[in-house]
């Protein structure tokens, strides 16, 4: 089994799904001959040609709108938005069409669409290249939202997303695109959407996170172990639908929780997780659930980036606050 980066794992998933199902095609800016600015689609243009790997004009709204039309017609488009900071232009197509067509046509039409979006900070990228905007999609009815936390996860989740009959926003954490390698089976496998995973079992506190934040969260858990606190780490994998049961079960066991994400705190997914814990496990809580998140500010340029992004120190600090509440 080969050790792959997330970029390679996603590339493999795309290649295999395109080989298996000729309804699958890719469209976006620079995804063709150039193989994508992150090389995620490298080699696919050579392998499948320009009608299945389409370099498009610079039009985020149309990239998604056209993909919706392709999906409604019967193809399985995988659209790429080059960076999350440019997806806002596509919000209308996502909210008014992708997420609605099944319900507004009472099932007559549906939209098996995947929108891949490299997102998040940590790589010192230019302005508008480091936002974490998952909330916009999680709050939008009819959209599913997936965030892989490792190469292995990325392959299995992307295959599930491509095969899903509904629109899936597949958010790829740039920070871990290449920073970690992992054994990824060549053989096909599917990680079902909507199921989280326990990355680390523990008894004293539940750490809930996803994507690139899994790493600092795990580091914090290790640090806590030294000081004798046992943390359970939950990787949500899918933000919509949320795996509420897994969150509740773990909190009922540990009685404490911290949510870690990059996006601004206010109305972030962390708020929703806390709201669900409140609804289903309030009496089990020994302390307020803490949030370690980006601030309610604009994501800064590289020089201040490290202050914005949650890190293991901030997670440890939060864990201590919760444990010694």
């Amino acid at each position, binding site marked *: 089994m080969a050790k792959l980066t997330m970029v390679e794992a996603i590339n493999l998933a795309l290649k295999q799904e395109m080989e298996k199902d000729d309804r699958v095609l890719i469209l976006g800016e620079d995804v063709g001959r150039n193989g994508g600015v992150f090389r995620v689609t490298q080699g696919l243009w050579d392998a499948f040609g320009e009608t299945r790997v389409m370099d498009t004009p610079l*039009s985020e709204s*149309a990239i998604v709108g056209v993909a*919706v039309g392709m999906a409604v017609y019967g193809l399985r488009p995988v659209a790429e938005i080059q960076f999350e900071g440019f997806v806002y232009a596509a919000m209308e197509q996502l909210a008014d069409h992708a997420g609605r067509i099944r319900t*507004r046509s009472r099932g007559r*039409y549906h939209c098996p669409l995947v929108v891949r979006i490299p997102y998040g900070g940590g790589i010192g990228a230019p302005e508008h290249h480091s936002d974490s905007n998952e909330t916009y999609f999680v709050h939008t009815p009819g959209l599913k939202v997936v965030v892989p936390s490792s190469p292995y996860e990325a392959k299995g989740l992307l295959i599930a997303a491509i095969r899903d009959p509904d629109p899936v926003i597949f958010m790829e954490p740039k920070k871990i695109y290449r920073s970690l390698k992992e054994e990824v089976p060549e053989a096909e496998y599917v990680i079902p959407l909507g199921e989280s995973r326990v990355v680390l079992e523990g008894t004293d506190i539940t750490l809930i996170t996803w994507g690139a934040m899994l790493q600092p969260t795990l580091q914090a858990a290790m640090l806590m172990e030294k000081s004798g606190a046992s943390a359970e780490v939950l990787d949500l994998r899918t933000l919509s639908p*949320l795996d509420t049961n897994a969150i509740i079960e773990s909190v009922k066991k540990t009685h404490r929780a911290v949510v870690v994400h990059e996006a601004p705190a206010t109305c972030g997914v962390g708020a929703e997780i806390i709201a669900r814990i409140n609804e289903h496990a309030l009496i089990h809580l020994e302390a307020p659930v803490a949030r370690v998140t980006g601030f309610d500010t604009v994501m800064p340029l590289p020089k201040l980036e490290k202050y914005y992004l949650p890190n293991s120190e901030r997670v440890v600090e939060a864990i201590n606050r919760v444990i010694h509440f």
Partner: protein
Amino acid sequence: MPKKLVETFRVEWLQVLDEDGKCDEALRPSLDDDQIKRLFEWMVLARTFDEKAFKLQREGRLGTYASILGQEAGQVGSAFALRPTDWMFPTFREPGASFVRGLPVRMVLQYWAGDERGSQIPEGLNDFPITIPVGTQIPIAVGAALAAKAKGDDVAVMAFMGDGATSKGDFHEGLNFAGVFAAPVVFVCQNNQWAISVPLRRQTAAKTLAQKAFAYGFSGVQVDGNDVLAVYRAAHEALHRAREGKGPTLIECVTYRLGDHTTADDASRYRSQGEVEEWKKRDPIERLKKYMDKHGLWNKSYDHAVHGEAKEKVEQGVSEQESLPPPDPRDLFRFTFHELTAELNDQMERFVGTDGQRDARE
């Protein structure tokens, strides 16, 4: 050469029937007598429906409704050029086109009565539901056209839009995409001179809407939108080019919205009755009628029969729609995803436990 001409364009105007129904035989599309009668009959149905829908709204039996009075030719002439296998993307002001395609009167009423089941397009009919957010159907139509092309299907796509829609980014991005990929799509712009209260001159400084096509490297033509034969001819030619792989076309149908924007609007606040009267003289149905009369395709009894059938069809649709059982509140949740998620299931059950139940009891 320092200052040289690199490109020139021409925008043409197409009219087959003049206002007195006089026909330019050189431009007359090849339609047999029966087909011409169909065009007349579809336009009569469209108008009959429109009058009824307006009444129903006033009687509180229908929600907000957008009248098509005066625009029958642009809708019927273009849709009539489509094949059943083609796809159509209507705006909220295309019931005339939808009828030609085979959408039951009942469903159009159902939609405007506030029931999603009115958008549950019958299997086999390749039409997209009405799009309300102006212009947003355009990139979707282009995507459908590119999908058809990719699959090698012998399918063309027709996307409708209004003059106001030409100001929207989606119009630009969609048409540009279509140009770059030579999508088999025909864009039919119903230039009815108004976007609610905003007149065309406030929508664009361009002299025609047809010329916008040149920005995307394909051609645009301006058609007398109240001349059903001209509209048909332009649509037929454009669809043919699309099927031939010759790419998209923009057709501007110059017409006029004789009614208020919708039943919620009062056009007298922002436009003169004089302007409306001027356009009433260009009635598309009257014009075809004059032509048919000259050619012995029309007489009083035929006219009577056509209106009678139309009335019947519409009344039939009304009673069908009004005798439908109300939608099941659970439908609110059922179609959000292929399968109900756990969270949605919870929400549905909690809800059924309260209002839903109570309502079921009612």
